[in-house]
């Protein structure tokens, strides 16, 4: 159902949505009708396509069902070439459609803007309402003032950009993704350091790990973090700073 909620975002990118499930049409029809899923959901009875593309999960053992696929998504271009794919290692983990859009540069939801003296940071996220096992993305969009820069990790004495996410048992942090900093030569000191300038995005990839039995009420939560940074211009460096950050979540239970 999360993917159905992202249909407009994919449509604006010219991408249609479809799902493949190894179950009969009538079973799928009842589900899509009940949950108002409008995009095509294909009944791959007998897992014909699933077997042809090598997606059968050999680790799935059952007395009642067979040829069950790994769950994930393919991004195909207009010629049917695979341009990207998203498959999670855990068999109950599911990357959200929203996180796919955010990784591609789409705006996140629930944006908060923080203005410092020399840069603006906008935090947002791929999803606010989440379910157990969903893999979502938290977004940090930076806009650095002209002729100023922030630092990447390297052999230097400046404080590099660093995001410290508070440990929380409901989160599994996978990776923090930054763009590639560029080498900046500060001639007066004859040092070359990695820097970030202008507009750039960082993304925190994480999976929600919690249990809420079906029928449980939704409950609020949040992801807390601290951003460390130091800003310099071509002529002066400012003291290092920190920013407290937070992303709200609404935890919902499994629907079935």
């Amino acid at each position, binding site marked *: 159902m999360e993917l159905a909620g992202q249909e407009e975002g994919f449509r604006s990118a010219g*991408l249609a949505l479809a799902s493949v499930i190894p179950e009969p049409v009538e079973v799928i029809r009842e589900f899509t009708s009940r949950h108002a899923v409008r995009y095509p959901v294909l009944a791959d009875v007998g897992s014909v396509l699933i077997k042809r593309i090598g997606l059968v999960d050999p680790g799935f053992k059952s007395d009642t069902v067979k040829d069950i696929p790994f769950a994930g998504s393919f*991004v195909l271009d207009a010629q049917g070439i695979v341009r990207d794919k998203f498959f999670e290692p855990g068999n109950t983990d599911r990357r959200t459609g929203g996180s796919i*859009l955010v990784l591609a540069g789409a705006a996140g939801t629930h944006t908060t803007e923080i203005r410092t003296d020399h840069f603006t940071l906008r935090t947002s996220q791929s999803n606010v309402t989440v379910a157990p096992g969903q893999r979502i993305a938290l977004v940090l969009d930076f806009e650095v003032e002209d002729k100023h820069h922030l630092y990447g990790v390297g052999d230097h004495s400046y404080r590099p950009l660093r995001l410290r996410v508070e440990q929380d048992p409901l989160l599994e942090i996978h990776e923090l993704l930054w*763009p590639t900093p560029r080498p900046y030569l500060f001639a007066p000191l004859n040092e070359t350091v990695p820097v970030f300038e202008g507009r750039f*995005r960082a993304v925190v990839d994480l999976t929600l790990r919690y249990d809420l039995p079906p029928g449980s009420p939704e409950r609020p939560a949040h992801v807390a973090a601290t951003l460390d940074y130091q800003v310099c211009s071509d002529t002066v460096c400012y003291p290092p700073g920190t920013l407290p950050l937070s992303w709200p979540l609404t935890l919902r239970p499994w629907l079935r």
Partner: protein
Amino acid sequence: MWQVGRVLALALLGLHCGPATPVGSASRPAMPATRSTSQGPGPAVGESFPAFEAFDQEGRRQTFESLRGPNGLLLNINRSVVW
């Protein structure tokens, strides 16, 4: 809006096409340079997805050609709608 859609389409279809531009620009921010999840089972990035056809929930026979949008298709594979 159409310009935003075009930029997003190009980005979605270039997700796995090498490192992003390191310096941000006014038109498009620099994006994360690495993403480790372009792996997993099935056809690899760069390969043609095999032809397929199946019936959807409305009983319509669907193929890649009937499903795709102007810039392609996000094809989601799932295990069940029941369990």
